[in-house]
């Protein structure tokens, strides 16, 4: 099979050295420069191999290659499926392909049969033969079909409630194309926006289009992207840079990782367009080293884009030069902050500097720099393709477009979802997310990671967009959404996030370095039942000062988890401080275990399993726990068959 990107015959002369402006369109609708049925046929075949139109003889088994599915063994599954296809003699009409993340990570490894759209979950290598049989005889493998908690089964991809509520435009390629094949991206229309920009638009028009679309930065701050580009374009300097911020570090966030792993070229295309718009010829992708798969796929994407002349000199004979280099971060959360990220690329310690000057005036190596996050850049080709007007139909007036969220915590369907801006929290959590797991009650949702806030029941009907959330002390952040059930202690949650920010503070400014430490210590004392009301006052003062005086966004936003939990769950703080009690029973040192004499049968199981010999009692007599010895590990509770151990 020829590669779609290859020249069909000697009449086609495209190469990076002798670029053809029609190259990209020619791959999917060509050839243009000559008429040759054979050439046309070759191309059509390839496109069909990617798109798999229904009605044809050709079928495809798509195996999810996202991080979640990969860790559940999807790589081995691919091998088994290929083997089974060969054994069944179907290799000429059935292909096995590995794609990026499908988002439905809880149910992986996921297999998707095209063109029928049959969706299998939790597939094991041993299921390979049955799946191949399905292709041969059309019999759906019932045991692999997704079933919800109520037992309803959903064999088709589009019926599954998790997907039904979503609007997949950024993530649409993730579950369909092979991210390591540029030809797959081109086959589904990739790099056409770049062609449009290079052939039909001026840089000013591109910026205007992005401004009209109302696209706002998806990294958290929501700064209008077009405005940023316009500022960088205005900067009268010869050298400018485009940086893609792929240093996604919020706990529980993996939107950017999935995009990079599943559809890396969309990000590259966005960067090239950004470069054209602002007049830059060099881009950098700063990706955290903890994303090895994303890095691997980016490297291959960059290499392939260069190989086919979509990066480098005189792209598609437009006279525009642009190249991209990949920089791997060394694991500092603060390097997600723009100025720290730039310092890190420059080879310095990743520490933020004071703004202004803004990066668009003096950024990387003191040159005007546009810094956009992965998801923002992935939106760019989309906007160019569909036009600003069409794009604005998605989302809200002030926050157009869709947003990808990483749902995690006590949900039925944790995973990656893409919804239009303006959906309510309730729709996302209870609709797409399937509600709270194990029938428990919703308690809070933490948005936007360590910089974000915790919202409560009363906020569930708030629309999720940039402005609505900030009015209640939260932020959309980069899109992490951690849902907590009634079993969560909000003081402990605040403590968790402070521990994170304290560890990740770069140490440059006093309030963040020293202030978060003392805030953390106060929260730790609260969780141990050692705090006083004075401590609470100190905590609130520290929140105020750290927020008002820290140098960068990390410090300024890090009190948010504390402030929002204080605002919406104050009674829980008071319980810890005044009553020395953890209502959720999470804070180990405030929990007491005792044995209900009436229920205890004296079986001795708890006694045997207690690691510190804190339980005493005669056989067949009620046992008792010695508080002075108990380390509150909870083993007795989990071992007791008679529900005699009580936590209070």
């Amino acid at each position, binding site marked *: 099979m020829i590669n779609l990107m290859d020249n069909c015959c000697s009449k086609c002369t495209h190469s990076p050295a002798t670029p053809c402006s029609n190259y990209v369109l020619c791959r999917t609708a060509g050839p243009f420069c000559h008429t040759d049925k054979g050439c046309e046929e070759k191309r059509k075949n390839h496109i069909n191999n990617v798109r798999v139109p229904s009605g044809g003889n050709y079928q495809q088994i798509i195996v999810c290659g996202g991080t979640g599915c990969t860790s559940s063994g999807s790589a081995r599954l691919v091998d088994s499926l290929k083997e089974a296809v060969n054994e069944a003699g179907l290799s000429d009409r059935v292909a096995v392909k590995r794609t990026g993340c499908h988002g439905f990570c809880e149910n992986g490894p996921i297999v998707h049969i095209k063109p029928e759209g049959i969706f299998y979950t939790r597939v094991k290598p041993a299921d390979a033969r049955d799946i191949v049989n399905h292709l041969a005889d059309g019999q759906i493998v019932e045991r692999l079909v997704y079933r919800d908690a109520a037992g309803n089964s959903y064999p088709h991809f589009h019926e599954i409630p998790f997907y039904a509520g979503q609007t997949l435009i950024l993530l649409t390629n993730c579950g369909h194309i092979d991210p390591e094949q540029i030809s797959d991206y081109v086959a589904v229309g990739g790099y056409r926006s770049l062609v449009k920009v290079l052939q039909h638009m001026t840089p000013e028009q591109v910026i205007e289009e992005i401004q009209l679309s109302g696209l706002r930065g998806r990294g958290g701050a929501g700064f209008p992207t077009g405005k940023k580009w316009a500022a960088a374009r205005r900067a009268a300097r010869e050298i400018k840079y485009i940086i893609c911020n792929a240093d996604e570090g919020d706990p529980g966030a993996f939107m950017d990782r999935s995009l990079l792993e599943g559809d890396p070229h969309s990000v590259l295309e966005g960067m090239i367009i950004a470069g054209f718009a602002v007049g830059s010829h060099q881009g950098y992708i700063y990706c955290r080293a903890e994303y090895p798969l994303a890095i691997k796929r980016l490297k291959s994407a960059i290499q392939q884009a260069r190989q086919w002349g979509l990066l480098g000199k005189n792209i598609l004979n437009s006279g525009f030069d642009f190249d991209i280099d990949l920089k791997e971060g060394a694991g*500092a959360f*603060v390097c997600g902050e723009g100025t720290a990220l730039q310092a890190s690329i420059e080879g310095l*310690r990743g*520490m933020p*500097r*004071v703004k*202004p000057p803004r990066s668009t005036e003096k950024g990387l190596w003191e040159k005007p720099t546009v810094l956009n996050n992965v998801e923002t850049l992935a939106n760019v080709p989309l906007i160019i393709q569909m036009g600003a007007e069409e794009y604005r139909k998605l989302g809200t007036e002030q926050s157009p477009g869709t947003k990808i969220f990483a749902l995690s915590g006590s949900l039925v369907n944790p995973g990656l979802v893409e919804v239009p801006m303006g959906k309510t929290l309730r729709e996302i959590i209870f609709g797409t997310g399937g509600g709270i797991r194990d029938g428990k009650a919703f308690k809070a949702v933490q948005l936007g990671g360590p910089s974000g806030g915790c919202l409560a029941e009363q906020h569930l009907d708030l629309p999720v967009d940039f402005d609505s959330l900030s009015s209640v002390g939260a932020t959309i952040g980069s899109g992490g959404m951690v849902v907590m059930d009634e079993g969560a202690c909000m003081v402990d949650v605040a403590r968790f996030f402070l521990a994170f920010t*304290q*560890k*990740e*503070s*770069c*140490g*440059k*400014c*006093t*309030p963040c*370095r*020293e*202030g*978060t*430490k*003392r805030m953390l*210590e106060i929260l730790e004392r609260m969780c141990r039942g050692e705090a006083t009301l004075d401590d609470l006052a*100190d905590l609130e*003062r*520290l929140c*105020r*000062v750290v927020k*008002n*005086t*820290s*140098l960068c966004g990390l410090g*300024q936003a890090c009190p948010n988890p504390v402030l929002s939990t204080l605002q919406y769950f104050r009674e829980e703080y008071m319980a810890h401080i005044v009553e020395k009690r953890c209502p959720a029973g999470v804070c180990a040192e405030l929990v007491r275990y005792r044995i209900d004499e009436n229920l205890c049968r004296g079986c001795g199981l708890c006694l045997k399993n207690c690691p510190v010999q804190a339980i005493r009692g005669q056989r067949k007599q009620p046992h008792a726990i010695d508080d002075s010895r108990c380390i509150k590990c909870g083993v007795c509770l989990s071992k007791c068959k008679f529900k005699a151990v009580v936590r209070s």
Partner: protein
Amino acid sequence: MSDITCTINDKSVTVPRGTTILTAAAMLGIDIPTFCHDPELSRYGGCRICVVEVKGWGQLPASCVTEVREGMEVYTESEKVLEARRTILELLLANHPDDCLTCEKTGACRLQEYAYRYGVRKGAFPGACHAYPVEADNPFIMRDMNKCILCGKCVRVCSEVVGRSVIDFSFRGFHAKVATPLDSGLLNAGCVFCGSCVEVCPVGALTEKQRIGKGRPWELDSVTTTCPYCGVGCQINLLVKEGRVVGANAAGHGVNGRHLCVKGRYGHGFIHHPERLTNPLVRKNGQLHEVTWEEAIQEVVRRFGRIKQEYGGQAIGVLASARITNEENYLLNKLARLVLGTNHIDHCARL
């Protein structure tokens, strides 16, 4: 460049565009405390003690890095500012040894000064405190990182002025620390012991080993003079207590400003060295013996007189000195040519 007019504490001031709030305030005689700011070094904005309130702004910006804008209304000691400043001082003190009694920096310490100015004591935040070993692996610079407030001046002066980058920040968060590579000490890090880091340190984190216990800042007389070593002519202050030179620092002006080399800053121990010649010596029976000035002078007069008488002044040579003062060289010149009658006078100009 157009000028900008703004008000600070309700007083109007007009300054060139690009002026920081700190500088503009200084022009009005308003003192804003700073730790990390230094006009000779790059803008940093890390310590945040200089935060001020700007009407209409949510945050309290650091005045050392925030440039004034037209019509800006700045308040340098508002309630909000005072709360922030006191809290920052409390935070610094919470992680700072309570040993002003013996600290070498007492009396010249900014932390001490501001704690006093804002009435802040240690103890607001009980909790962890660093317990780093004091680094004193060399004869000159003591590094007590427990006292460091991470203002970064030493890091910047070492990289931006001295150009050596012997120290930088290491670790993160509460454990952030200014360190040599792999914490291996100044000696191993290629430090040239110019002492500029000590000069800029606002607290007692960097002090001079030679001066330990030799006198409090207010007990020392400071005499500005010219360094006796190479030909650069750095201006130094000799610090004197009870008739002894106990240390030296840069005078802050002249060709060197606040900078010196290791010799100019730490090379003055010879002044009170026990081997100093304290009496004239005259050779008798092959040995040098201490004598009175009268005897020594008489001996010189007698011997030179005889040579001059027997062979003429041209039989005497004089070596003047590239070490002694102009006045002394001039006099030697006069002595040689006029008194001894010889033009054989030279010095080691060529070495």
